[in-house]
């Protein structure tokens, strides 16, 4: 009889270089951000009332899971030391620190001032308390996109900070980053010029679906469909409004929305564009560019501009289907590992070994190499 280590400390996993591209920094306490809040008005609110509540959509997690679990299900990390400890536990060599706690739900707070000021405070907290490239900890700052001038200024400020490698925004029906057309082009120009990928994380979940079926009473319907639905919506809109024709250097990582839907959307868009392409020229951005058509097929924009983090990976059980799915998702170049630490939806890296559809090269690319190249990470 031999005692074995927990699965996440599997020797195979320990030997592999792994970059987790969705590692949440839990901000659940206003006191963490207070030293970094510039607005006296917001500072007073935080001091008296704590972090703001955000709009929720009616689901009670414990009802669905029959347990108390949530955003601290597998731990908590809000400082460099805590991140280092978690990295050791899960054998991560590098992480992309992603907003967690209140940082994930800014789109669902009502006041633009509050959202913008909290975003800026989080960004400064991130720099001073979390990011440390020498220990493999890189970060994405929250884009205070509720005011374009603020967002541009923040990009200019944060892009010079060591270890900041991308800008965080959201796929959320309340907060479509690209949805206001050319008004936000200064943000995209600033990101593209500075080679900063836009990192889109799921924020609220269910709104996109709730209006479609009032009898929806299972959380599974919500979490299964709403995440990718929001991602499909945003990705499609970015492509069809010519965003990548105007900013050919812009790259986008979509987090926590899975990937199995990607080949469906790419092929569907290609097909439909070849039937109904003659109103692309009426779009605000394409019209102002003086162009009548997209320069490429939608599937080519998906291939060239988008990356997808793995969690929840949800590959087919059949090895043959799994291998085909990875190939159709262009996994060798476009799919990068994520855990979603410390949330109850966590994925650990052992699936990269247990899945027969993942060969050595693909494993290295998913686990780290593609992310290292995308974010210019130096481990």
């Amino acid at each position: 009889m031999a005692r074995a280590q927990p699965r996440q400390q599997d020797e195979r996993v320990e030997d592999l270089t792994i970059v987790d591209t969705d590692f949440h920094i839990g901000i659940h306490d206003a006191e963490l951000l207070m030293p970094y809040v510039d607005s006296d008005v917001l500072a007073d609110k935080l001091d008296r009332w704590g972090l703001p509540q955000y709009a929720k959509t009616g689901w009670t997690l414990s009802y669905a899971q029959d347990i108390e679990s949530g955003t601290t299900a597998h731990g908590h990390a809000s400082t460099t030391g805590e991140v280092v400890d978690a990295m050791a536990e899960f054998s991560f060599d590098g992480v992309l620190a992603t907003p967690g706690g209140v940082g994930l739900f800014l789109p669902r707070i009502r006041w633009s001032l509050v959202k913008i000021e909290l975003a800026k405070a989080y960004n400064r907290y991130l720099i001073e308390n979390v990011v440390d490239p020498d220990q493999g900890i890189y970060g994405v700052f929250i884009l205070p996109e509720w005011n374009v001038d603020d967002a541009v200024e923040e990009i200019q400020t944060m892009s010079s900070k060591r270890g900041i490698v991308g800008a965080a925004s959201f796929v959320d029906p309340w907060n479509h980053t690209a949805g206001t057309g050319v008004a936000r082009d200064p943000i995209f120009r600033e990101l593209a010029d500075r080679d900063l990928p836009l990192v889109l994380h799921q924020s609220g979940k269910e709104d996109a679906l709730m209006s479609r079926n009032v009898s929806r009473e299972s959380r599974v319907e919500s979490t299964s469909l709403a995440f990718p639905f929001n991602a499909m919506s945003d990705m499609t809109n970015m492509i069809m409004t010519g965003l990548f024709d105007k900013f050919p250097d812009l790259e986008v990582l979509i987090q926590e929305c899975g990937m199995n839907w990607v080949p469906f959307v790419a092929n569907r868009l290609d097909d439909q564009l070849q039937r109904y392409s003659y109103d692309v020229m009426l779009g605000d951005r394409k019209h102002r560019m003086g162009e009548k058509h997209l320069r490429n097929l939608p599937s080519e924009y998906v291939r060239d501009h988008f990356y997808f983090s793995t969690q929840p990976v949800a590959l087919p059980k059949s090895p043959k289907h799994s291998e085909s799915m990875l190939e159709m998702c262009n996994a060798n170049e476009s799919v990068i590992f994520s855990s979603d630490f410390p949330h109850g939806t966590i994925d650990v890296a052992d699936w990269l070994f247990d899945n027969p559809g993942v060969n050595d090269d693909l494993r290295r690319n998913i686990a780290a190499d593609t992310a290292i190249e995308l974010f210019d990470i130096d481990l």
Partner: protein
Amino acid sequence: MPEHHIGTIDEFTEGEGVRVTLDSNLDVAVFNVDGELYAILDNCLHMNYPLHEAGSTSRQPGGVNEKTCSIKCPWHGLEWSLEDGYNATLNKNLPTFDVETRGTEVYLIR
């Protein structure tokens, strides 16, 4: 049936699980539930994650339920009976194994 010596009773803390590996290739999670030892395959069918940390307080989705003699997977919460390995969501069973205690020595029968 072959039996495997897997330790002494004090190595199995009440309300917690321990992974033991048989014949170098079979991982089994052994739980002490209210003084009784139960053994179940250490592999949740959801994502093949290990079950033996079900009693750990560091993983909220997990848990050991004395009343139902069941555990919840510490990773995502799928529930497994320790008596027969049954899971109602999947309507499937994981293999379970008999555990015998002789004095302070613990044996798994397989």
